[in-house]
């Protein structure tokens, strides 16, 4: 019965849109129209959860940005969904002054401070509209749910809390404090929305530890405050019978940099890497041949939404790319058979429609008609989704072929698994056809991090080769420094157990008649191996003792005394875990965790792992951050 974080967030949003009255399920309720005003944080939160159509169905006639020119619309209630920053509050005061709307429902994404509340109050008094402010709410929704088991903290404002911001050389203490506070506030909102108090584990000596301490303190304060605690048993809905508390694992990005730069092979991760999947939306440039007299190829930009209600996407987002191609083919075939049935029915209907006498026949036909008519929109929707995925997959395939991403993937997997390389690294770097310069730098960094240890002379050699291939090597200097700093002698052991089997299966694919011409793209079978993050989570959940994990700190906000000694008191394995990565995360880690959870959960004990990160960084973006870090000194 436990609904996911995402569903809870949607519920909270819907309740907010219903004027903070819990929504009842009536078949046709009276429409109550309203205007929604949001800032960019609100926009990031709402856009992956509710489509414009759903907003319309809930009665939202207009949705406007807070800092835009807005005209007065009399006699309409307005719902504000904003962060309680000074700018926003000033703008709200202005709105009061200009009497834009009839009633105001103010919903703040995170808790508003006393001082700012006074500012709003004085603005309201000043403009004589105190009676118009109907409700003021703290929504505690300061996070973005992308999937049922994945959330991030920031999208539009990600630079403020990125890996670069945390690790740059000239970072000030105040900045770090600010970042920590943001992260803690969001994590707090996550747990308020869930209604549970987790047990916190974190490694020592980095940003994650700071976050853990602050979060523990905040949770503790809130629980002690008996009057306004969020975690009393009344708040937990009846459906939640999980007697076990979840585990919150806070990890720092420095644990594992290689995963951020890894070339990937699963559908969702590929779309993120190649097409920059943002907030479940993908922009693809398609070349459409135009029939104008000028001729030539026109590049059109198309946007696709990849939403959780798309069943094909849900099933395939974690599968390796060739499986996706096959699945699209299968879907297309099944769609065609269904379409054929409908057409047959139509033909049969056409002939028999001439008869008018027997009424019984008519009722049979009307029944068939209604069923066809109702299934038609479903079919059309299916067709649209199939087209969408076909386009995305074709575009992906083109990119893969152009940049030889499959070769990169294979090589990196081998490096991470310590097997022998087919092609030496130098060859790959000097190969002009293979990939963009960034791909090469990524490959080399992974080799540096996980491959066999290289002497300085060798590294310099590679550097020369890389600069020859037009790559920006500033990131490398940072990595070398970082490696020395963290003394990653333990790193090689973390990736062991991996490896891929290359099965040259393109002949088989050709025979299957797949419409995607897969010659030259090897069908890589990914052997399941665990990334460092997954390994850590596994050890913590099962109470195993791993060398790195033993050193982790333990926080339990529910304990009366803050136990700084950090001895784990809980002896039973955890069934639910929330993994949070400070400093950026990506879909590869997410996918790995999902696979791990699936493997580990048997019928009686479903294991749930939810992945969160401060922001979703694609490899290119992360590489840029590393370059900035490297070129600083």
């Amino acid at each position, binding site marked *: 019965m436990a609904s996911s974080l995402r569903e809870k967030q949607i519920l*909270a949003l819907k309740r907010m849109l219903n004027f903070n009255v819990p929504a009842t399920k009536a078949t046709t309720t009276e429409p109550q129209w309203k205007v929604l005003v949001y800032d960019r944080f609100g926009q990031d939160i709402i856009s992956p959860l509710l489509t414009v159509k759903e907003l319309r169905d809930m009665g939202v006639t207009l949705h406007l940005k807070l800092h835009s020119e807005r005209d007065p619309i009399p006699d309409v209630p307005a719902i504000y969904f904003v962060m309680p920053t000074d700018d926003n509050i000033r703008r709200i005061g202005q709105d009061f002054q200009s009497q834009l709307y009839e009633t105001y429902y103010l919903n703040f994404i995170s808790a508003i401070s006393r001082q700012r*509340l006074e500012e709003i109050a004085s603005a309201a008094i000043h403009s004589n509209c105190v009676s118009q402010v109907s409700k*003021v709410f703290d929504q505690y929704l300061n996070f973005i749910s992308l999937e049922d088991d994945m959330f991030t903290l920031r999208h539009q404002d990600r630079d403020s809390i990125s890996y670069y911001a945390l690790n740059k050389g000239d970072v000030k203490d105040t900045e770090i404090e600010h970042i920590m506070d943001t992260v803690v506030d969001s994590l707090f909102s996550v747990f308020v929305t869930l209604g549970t108090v987790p047990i916190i584990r974190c490694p020592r000596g980095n940003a994650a530890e700071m976050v853990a301490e602050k979060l523990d303190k905040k949770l503790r304060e809130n629980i002690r405050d008996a009057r306004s605690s969020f975690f009393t048993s009344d708040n937990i809905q009846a459906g939640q019978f999980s007697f076990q508390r979840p585990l919150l694992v806070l990890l720092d990005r420095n644990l594992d940099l290689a995963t951020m730069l890894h070339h990937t092979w699963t559908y969702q991760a590929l779309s993120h890497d190649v097409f920059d999947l943002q907030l479940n939306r993908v922009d693809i440039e398609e070349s459409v041949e135009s029939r104008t007299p000028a001729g030539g190829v026109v590049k059109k930009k198309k946007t696709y939404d990849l939403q959780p209600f798309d069943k094909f996407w849900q099933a395939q987002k974690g599968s390796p790319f060739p499986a996706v191609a096959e699945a699209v083919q299968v879907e297309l075939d099944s769609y065609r058979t269904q379409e054929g049935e409908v057409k047959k029915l139509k033909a049969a209907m056409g002939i028999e429609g001439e008869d008018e006498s027997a009424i019984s026949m008519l009722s049979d036909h009307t029944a068939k008609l209604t069923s066809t008519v109702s299934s038609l929109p479903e079919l059309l929707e299916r067709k649209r989704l199939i087209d969408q995925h076909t386009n995305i997959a074709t575009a992906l395939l083109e990119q893969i072929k152009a940049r030889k991403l499959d070769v990169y993937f294979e090589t990196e997997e081998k490096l991470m698994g310590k097997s022998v390389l087919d092609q030496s690294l130098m060859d790959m770097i000097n190969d002009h056809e293979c990939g963009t310069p960034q791909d090469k730098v990524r490959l080399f960094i992974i080799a540096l991090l996980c491959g066999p240890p290289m002497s300085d002379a060798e590294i310099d050699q590679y550097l020369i080769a890389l600069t020859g291939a037009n790559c920006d090597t500033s990131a490398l200097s940072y990595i070398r420094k970082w490696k020395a700093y963290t003394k990653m002698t333990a790193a090689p052991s973390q990736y062991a157990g991996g490896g891929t089997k290359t099965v040259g299966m393109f002949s088989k694919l050709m025979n299957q008649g797949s419409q995607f011409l897969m010659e030259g793209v090897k069908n890589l079978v990914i052997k399941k191996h665990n990334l460092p993050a997954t390994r850590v989570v596994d050890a913590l959940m099962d109470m195993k003792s791993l060398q790195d994990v033993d050193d982790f700190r333990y926080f339990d906000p529910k304990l009366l005394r803050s136990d700084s000694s950090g001895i784990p008191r809980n002896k039973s394995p955890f069934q639910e875990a929330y993994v949070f990565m400070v400093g950026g995360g990506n879909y590869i880690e997410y996918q790995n965790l999902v696979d791990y959870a699936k493997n580990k959960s048997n019928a009686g004990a479903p294991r749930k792992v939810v992945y969160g990160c401060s922001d979703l960084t694609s490899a290119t973006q992360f590489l840029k951050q590393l370059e900035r870090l490297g070129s600083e000194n």
Partner: protein
Amino acid sequence: MADVTNVFKATVKALRTRKKATGDVTKNSQTFTTILPSSKLKGDFEKKSKEVVQNISKLKDFLMEHRKAYVSTGSHLSAETSTMTDSERDQIDEEAEKVIHMCQTSVALIKNLNGSQHSQVKEHRTAVIRLIEDYLKGVCKVYSEQRAVRVKRVVDRKRLSKLEPDKLFKQRRANKQPTFSENTNQSSRQDQSTSEGDRSPTKSKKATSEEKMEEEEEISTEEAQMFERENAALFEEMSSVSEEEKDIDRIEQVVVGSTENIKEGNEEIRQAMKNSAGFRVYILFFLLLLTLSLLFLDWYNG
């Protein structure tokens, strides 16, 4: 999740008392006039749209209230009488349609009101109109579903009632089905489906058929005429078909006779050939004998 409205209101009060304490006497009159919620003159649009929504809600409540009685599916056998006569149902239908019509005109009126306004206001009003229309559509759907159920039941009853006297005739026709091999597609399918269609309702409503006999009078004259015409057309077709059958029988017999004749003829010819072959043999033998006897006589004589 956290309702801080009370905190807000408390803050407002605190601020106000603070202001009063610092002697803001000049603003007193203003605050007095604005303590009571100002009854703003609601614009035409707002008033009308709220009216329409209220009307539609009233209609919905009205329909829901009487829904159970309207759709009463009281079983035919039991003694439960439907609590609504048909005239009452018609009345409900009429009134519902009137209200729907009225709402539609009001919506059109509101659309006209939405003339030249600022873009945001216009957008808002268009969306409001759409919401009202959707709501109206939803309520209309409820109404039409109800009505569809009622019409269907009436139609079923009628079909069943005309089933009884013709039951035997149709079954006889159904038996003749397999022998016709040259029917046009239309007529055969028609027959099959009518017979099929009749068989199933008969199965399901056999128990109720006795009761339905009483409702024969309900067949309107129009429908009776239509059925008569159909019957006549069907009967003509049947007769033409039976004539063709007779022809076919005759031809078949003739053909059979001729084949037999031919067979006999063959036999006789064979016989004749055999006879002629035997006759020849005798003649030859006789001639040979004569020749031999001549030679013998010639030798004997000299």
